[in-house]
């Protein structure tokens, strides 16, 4: 059972058999690909991530926003407001559009 002559011979044979077996650089690199990443690396990876932007929907939304902002805000307002300054007072006159048109 102990490491006697037979044991030494067995060891020698095993050493001989495994003599040319080495971990290749390729395998080392492959193994390292699966290592756990540090927080720093995770952040850096996230920041350097390529993001695919779907151009059509983005352009459509952009155009929509542009149109909304260009549209006159008071188009649906049914009244005009005139402010008349009298001395230190202001008089606000609201005139309904329909009425003005009939004037």
């Amino acid at each position: 059972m102990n490491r006697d002559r037979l044991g030494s011979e067995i060891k020698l044979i095993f050493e001989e058999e495994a003599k040319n077996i080495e971990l290749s650089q390729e395998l080392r690199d492959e193994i390292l690909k699966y290592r756990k990443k540090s927080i720093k690396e995770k952040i850096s990876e996230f920041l350097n991530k390529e993001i695919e932007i779907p151009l059509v929907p983005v352009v459509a939304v952009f155009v929509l926003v542009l149109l909304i902002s260009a549209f006159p805000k008071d188009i649906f307002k049914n009244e005009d407001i005139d402010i008349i300054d009298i001395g230190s007072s202001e008089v606000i006159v609201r005139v309904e559009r329909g009425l003005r048109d009939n004037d």
Partner: protein
Amino acid sequence: MELNKEKDLVKRLKKGHEEAYVEVINLYGNRLLKTCYLILKDRHDAEDVVQETFFRLFRQIDSFKGNSSIYTWIYQIALNLCRDRLKAGKDTALFESIAESDEKVEDTVIESIDRDILRKELKNLDDLYREVLILFYYEELSIKEISKILNEKEGTIKSRLSRGRTLLKKAIEKGGELSE
């Protein structure tokens, strides 16, 4: 490996430090590949097992509590993978004939050992015995360490070692034919 050094290594592995991963591969990679090759007798299979072992180690490193050494843990994973491969390649299940251990033959001192015969018989030896012989003689692990790695009782390991040696001695005496 010193306990403090190992604790530090595990800590760095958990934090994801690249140099710790390189260190663990440098420390155990080559030796592990050689052992797996001796067990599986196939370089490609051995490389697959080593790769899978490190993948599992990296994936499970956060759950490593340090109850055993990282070396034992790596070898536990690797040897289980080796056993799975050996089982997959066999139609019949392995069986152990511990009771048959021939003490007389075990005690016999072989005067001259023909290395070629021994080499041939080692190759033909049942995987169950070959595995223990590799861990004991090649890896120079203690019975206790082997029992921990293989998750078997120390007595079982001793029996397998003794049986393996007996089979080899018998074969050498007969001039190169294993009785099993």
